[in-house]
């Protein structure tokens, strides 16, 4: 009797839950690693979300979701509460995304910067940020007087190493004496640490700073020190108007709108997207005129050539730090090599944290 009552209670609870989650409206959910006000990575994803909203599709976001136990619950809750398409926008959500996807075969999942697509309802996407780094390297190589470029890096994953290498290769092409100094902060968003790292690099003689982290602290530090810097993820110009030469912009909006509409119309299918300057997922903010009209022209030309494919960021000969050949003369690195990149090219100082 008592046991039966319990059983009824549980099934009643389940029924109520399902009837609540039985929805009509198409909804898209977003999971962010940082606050939407970071003015970097998460900010740009949220701009993408707003574009989806502007296209007439309802969206929800959850910000500052920590990796680990919390991520899975948030993703699951979004799936459970009637979201039909869920973007998880940081690599640390990879396993959680795939785990939840298994339990919700009718919900579509899009995971940014990861490599696991364990179920047919999981797509992955990322942008070829390294193409932007090539332009930064060219500008930095021309402008540095100390031949030292400071680089604030987050985690030693291929995406970040790729950026460091692309920048260094481009800088070497215009200035063979270039040295890249790196400080690892082991965080995507930590304004305090990022500012300290910027200062440490400046103290070591860097007269140009760039970052693969999300806050505006490095460019602000550079502005105070009166040196050049580059913005990351979004146009950070207003935070350091004198210092910033250009920003690499992650423009997720077209992709998000396209995928959301496809999912709504039942045309979504699994894919692995890696778009760059050509498709507009990577864009450059207006170049600072202080770098000189000639250099602006060169940068714009380089941007065009990278987009058209005339120039590839990783064109041989490319050597590692010990002088071993990585890419032979006349060849370009294939995507497989780029995706697994875990060695520095010649000219980068220090070792990859291992």
């Amino acid at each position, binding site marked *: 009797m008592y046991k039966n009552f319990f059983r009824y209670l*549980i099934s009643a*609870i*389940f029924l*109520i*839950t399902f009837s609540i989650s039985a929805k009509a409206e198409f909804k898209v*959910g977003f999971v962010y690693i940082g606050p939407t006000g970071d003015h970097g990575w998460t900010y740009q994803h949220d701009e993408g979300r707003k574009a989806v909203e502007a296209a007439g599709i309802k969206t*929800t*976001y*959850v*910000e*500052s*979701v*920590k*990796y*680990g*136990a*919390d991520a*899975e*619950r*948030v993703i*699951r*809750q*979004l799936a*459970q*509460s009637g979201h039909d398409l869920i973007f998880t926008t940081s*690599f*640390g959500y990879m*396993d959680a995304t795939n785990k939840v996807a298994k*339990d919700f075969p009718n919900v579509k999942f899009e995971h940014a910067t990861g*490599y696991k697509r364990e179920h047919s309802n999981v797509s992955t996407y990322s942008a070829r940020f390294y193409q932007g780094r090539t332009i930064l390297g060219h500008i930095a190589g021309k402008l540095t007087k100390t031949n030292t470029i400071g680089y604030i890096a987050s*985690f*030693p*994953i*291929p995406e970040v*190493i790729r950026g460091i290498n692309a920048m260094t290769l481009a800088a070497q092409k215009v200035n063979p004496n270039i040295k890249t100094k790196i400080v690892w902060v*082991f965080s995507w968003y930590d304004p305090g640490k990022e500012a300290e790292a910027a200062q440490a690099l400046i103290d070591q003689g860097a007269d140009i700073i760039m970052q693969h982290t999300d806050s505006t602290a490095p460019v602000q530090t550079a502005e105070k020190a009166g040196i050049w810097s580059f913005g990351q993820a979004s146009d950070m110009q207003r935070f350091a108007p004198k210092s910033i030469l250009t920003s690499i912009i992650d423009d997720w909006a077209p992709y998000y709108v396209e995928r959301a509409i496809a999912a709504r119309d039942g045309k979504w299918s699994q894919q692995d997207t890696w778009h760059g300057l050509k498709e507009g997922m990577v864009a450059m903010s207006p170049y600072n005129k202080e770098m000189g009209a000639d250099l602006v022209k060169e940068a714009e030309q380089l941007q065009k050539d990278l987009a058209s494919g005339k120039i590839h960021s990783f064109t041989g000969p490319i050597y590692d730090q010990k002088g071993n050949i990585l890419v032979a003369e006349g060849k370009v690195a294939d995507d497989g090599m780029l*995706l*697994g990149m*875990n060695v520095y090219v010649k000219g980068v100082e220090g070792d*990859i*944290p*291992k």
Partner: protein
Amino acid sequence: MEDLLIKIEKRNDVPTTLYFLTPFIAIILTIVGGGIIFYTLGFNPIEALKFYFITPISNLYGFSELLLKATPLCLIAIGLSFCFKSNNWNIGAEGQLTFGAIVGGGVALLFYNQEGFYILPLIIIAGAIGGMIFALIPAILKTYFNTNEILVSLMLVYVSKLILDYLVVGPWSNPEGFNFPETRQFSDSARMPLLFESLRIHAGIFIALAAVLVGWFVLYKTYLGFQIKVSGLSLKTAKYAGFKGKTMILIVFMISGACAGLAGVGEITGPIGQLHRMISPDYGFTAIIVAFLGRLNPFGIIFASLVVSLTYLGAETAQIFLQIPQYTGQVFQGMILFFLLASDYLLFFKIKFLNLKKNELGH
């Protein structure tokens, strides 16, 4: 001429019922305060509070998630109550959790491609020992070198996190993981058994419940518990009574560290299944709130861990359904602690407003 004089007096007779009632008052005040905040932010307060406190646990999955979140908080808070009751301010449970997870995770990685019934118990024991060792550092420094345990235990949190960073980026990182800062996934034998299919609640909850029972027994039924309580009330009395203060400090820190270490192991062998840099969303610090909200009483702590977990889950639900910023969850936790401390103050002290004529102040 009149002067207003405020006098603060200690109350001699604090009723026990009121003492245990104040946490509830604090929670009610927090809910009222939260409602006002929601209202000023432009949300319907009733609806917002519903999404905060009811929606998260309105189904079986939500309730299991509540227990999942409360498990480490409860476990750590039980350990902390031993320290706090005896006037030892261990603020570094987060570090002890992390170090316990490192040691336990190390054992799990040792057996990463093996199965066997003995693996999980080994990991659990390793985790407890890891936390214990890490807690012994501030304890030994306090007893033999007179350092301040608040500072030492807090600083060690950052040490443990840096050690974890080093390990998951370097020697322990998954060789097939493209350098992502995480280890391999543990084998199935290294994972806590799940209690129900498709829910994440795992056997770790029994460790927490056992800690509650053992904690209650030790604190209230043993000589050690008596020593701890007396030392907490008055160190001088404890000395007169001839209690060995140093040994007791070491013991309470070891208990506390072991509990935190177990919580860490529970997380990595439970919902996470590997080591990475963010194994704990500051459970070790939140557990301090839990311990005090639970009045340092093992059964009170169960209740408090559920309430505090609910503020976390509520913050997520409220964001999903109403787009209320996640940080309101932290505001809630802050408010609970504030109201609890404030009502404690009023409970233990009375404030008298005295109107005195000037001449009465004379001799």
